[in-house]
């Protein structure tokens, strides 16, 4: 049996974190691989958080926020979209596989979508195997 | 043995001296801390936070614990102030030279302290008072920003004044409602007291600015540079003369100091 991949998720408390709750209360099945970190907004996620997660052993990182137009703070996710569009490409440029980082919009009502993203990402990470790049104890 | 690896030690007791000074009683868990002389320092560390060079406030006697009076200033000292009795710290030392007490035998002594600068002086004062018969008068002049910033109150107001031939004069920069004593900065206060320079050794420690003006005051009072001593504090990393941080000209404060005579200081560049 291979170890389950470690997936770190930064989830906006107004939407994606609630979406994860909904997935749980709806008894939707998704892998237990995700370590969810509640943040006030996807705009709060500093790209160095993502790097830190990879350094400390994450096999993949998800940043999840409200759909564009639905941000509790009006525009946090729109800044995050610009930022992570660049960061995603940059991580790939450094040699990370594209599947290891995702930015997704998941609303509080989308428990199903949350479970689906986690399932997809976990499957991708299982296929890729453990991440050694950027990791401090490879 | 790697000199940078500390002994693990336990905080036995913590005393709150002032709002930002606490005195920690510390004892190594394994071997006893080596004998130390008044004026010497030790590296005190919290694992995961870092190290700071702190003067040893206690006076050595066999099988006694170490005392460090620590003012909350930076990262390490702030974390130390969060510590509780029973917590582990690292300790290594003793480091540096010490006050040339034997040279003072037969003379009067004048100690001039400011703020937490009394911590290294306390070690040498208690050492000298322990050898009371060997010295003449022992006069202690001490000041702090305000009455609540006075360290070592028990000794200042109770034990030291009771010693025969000893005097204690305390001043504050700014009084509060209860304070009835003098209100003055230490250097002018010292000049007003007009201590007799003849045959007296003077020792001072305090913040850099206070040391600078006290040295000038002592000169005006007639103290020759080779009878005035101070103890310096600079940023240190290793404590053992390697890391380069505390150099003043060709000297390292950690191994060649921290005690310097005013004469020695004048031969060094003003980088302290």
């Amino acid at each position, binding site marked *: 049996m291979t170890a389950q991949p470690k997936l770190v998720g930064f989830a906006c408390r107004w939407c994606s974190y609630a979406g994860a709750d909904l997935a749980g209360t709806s008894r939707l099945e998704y892998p237990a691989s995700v370590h969810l970190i509640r943040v006030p907004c996807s705009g709060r996620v500093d790209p160095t958080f993502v790097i830190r997660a990879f350094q400390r052993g994450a096999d993949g990182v998800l940043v999840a926020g409200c759909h564009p137009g639905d941000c509790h703070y009006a525009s946090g996710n729109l800044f995050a979209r610009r930022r992570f569009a660049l960061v995603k490409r940059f991580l790939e440029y450094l040699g990370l596989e594209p599947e290891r980082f995702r930015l997704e919009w998941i609303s509080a009502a989308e428990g199903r979508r949350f479970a689906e993203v986690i399932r997809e990402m976990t499957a991708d990470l299982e296929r890729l195997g453990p991440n050694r790049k950027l990791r401090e104890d490879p | 043995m790697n000199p940078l690896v500390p002994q693990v030690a336990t905080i036995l007791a913590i005393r709150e001296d002032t709002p930002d000074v606490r005195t920690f009683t510390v004892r190594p868990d394994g071997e006893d801390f080596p004998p130390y002389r008044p004026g010497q320092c030790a590296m005190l560390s919290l694992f*995961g936070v870092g190290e700071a060079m702190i003067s040893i406030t206690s006076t050595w006697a066999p099988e006694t614990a170490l005392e460090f009076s620590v003012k909350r200033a*930076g990262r390490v000292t702030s974390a130390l102030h969060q510590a509780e009795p029973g917590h582990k710290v690292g300790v290594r030392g003793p480091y540096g030279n010490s006050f040339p007490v034997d040279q003072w035998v037969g003379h009067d002594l004048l100690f001039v302290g400011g703020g937490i600068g009394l911590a290294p002086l306390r070690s040498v004062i208690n050492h000298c008072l322990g050898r009371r018969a060997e010295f003449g008068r022992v006069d202690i002049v001490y000041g702090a920003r305000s009455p609540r910033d006075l360290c070592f109150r028990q000794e200042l107001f109770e034990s030291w004044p009771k010693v025969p031939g000893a005097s204690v004069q305390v001043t504050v920069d700014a009084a509060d409602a209860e304070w009835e004593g003098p209100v003055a900065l230490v250097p002018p206060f010292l000049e007003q007291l007009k201590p007799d320079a003849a045959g007296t050794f003077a020792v001072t420690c305090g913040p850099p600015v206070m040391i600078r003006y006290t040295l000038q005051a002592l000169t005006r009072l007639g103290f020759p540079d080779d009878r005035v001593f101070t103890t310096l504090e600079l940023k240190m990393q290793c404590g053992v003369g390697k890391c380069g941080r505390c150099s003043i000209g060709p000297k390292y404060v950690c191994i060649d100091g921290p005690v310097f005579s005013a004469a020695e200081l004048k031969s060094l560049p003003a980088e302290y």
Partner: protein
Amino acid sequence: MTMNLLPSERLAEFRECLAAGARLYGPVEVDGIVLFEELGGRPPAIRPGNPANSLKSFLCPQTEAVFDFEGGYTDVALRVPAAPTAQAIFGVRPCDAVALERVSRVLLAEPFADESYRQRREMTTILTMACREAGPHCFCRSVGVSPADGRGSDVVLYPADGHYLLEAVTARGLSVLQSAGAFLDPARDEAARATCQSTPVPLIGAVEREDLAARLEAVALHPHWDELARRCLGCGACTFLCPTCYCFALFDTVRGARGRRSRGWDSCQFKDYSLMAGGHDPLPTKASRIRRRFLHKLSRFPAVQGEYACVGCGRCGGTCPVGLHLAGVLSELEEVLR
């Protein structure tokens, strides 16, 4: 002094013999620059002058663990790292080897000898290649070091046409030559050494050594330091690449209940180098920090150790982004004095 000849075509075998009992490092060209790295069978890139990094990388590494700790507030256990293993460094220039000897004066000073440096130094064999041509920034002769200097080396190789003259400087060097006896020819070639001893070191950056320390102290408060400070960027390139700079800092890192206290290079050119917790800083300006660096190397270290803390390797001149070459700065100061 034992001397042997090594035919040039057997140099690779000689290196393999060194690599048998130790990790073997030497200069290699990587992405267009020459660096000391583990050779791993690559041929060394022996060029005039020095690789970008110095031997410091292998004797006082950029960062290394002092000890690991584990536990909580009331229970801590320390663990010191394993002792270093044997290493040999091939193709060192004489100035770099002399620099080790200078650094050792401080780091090995008793009673607090730097244990990790001492262990590494004892496990390191230095095989020096004397210079037949100076590099573009070299000024070793200006600070009393020769292109054929053997101080700090275990074995010195003097290149000649078709062979190298090998000289064992230390007992460890002697045992290297003994173990490589099969490749060596007991013949001698004094001329090979003499040639290197007379290698010209260009005049650029020549330093007038007469009373240098006193002349520098005399200008310690000259406004020209402010001029240098305007140019200086306050980075640490000069000090980190300098083979005689040994300043370090200690720092802790924590991962849950485990942690590590490490030491790592630090630079007196950094603005927080001597800044104290209460805000006091004995070196509050860039000018004061630059002055500290120069005076330490050329006046204050010599006052205690009798030798400069500079070996003329030229790294500061070759790498400073704004051209603050040590020898250049000295000649500017001379100009200012005149």
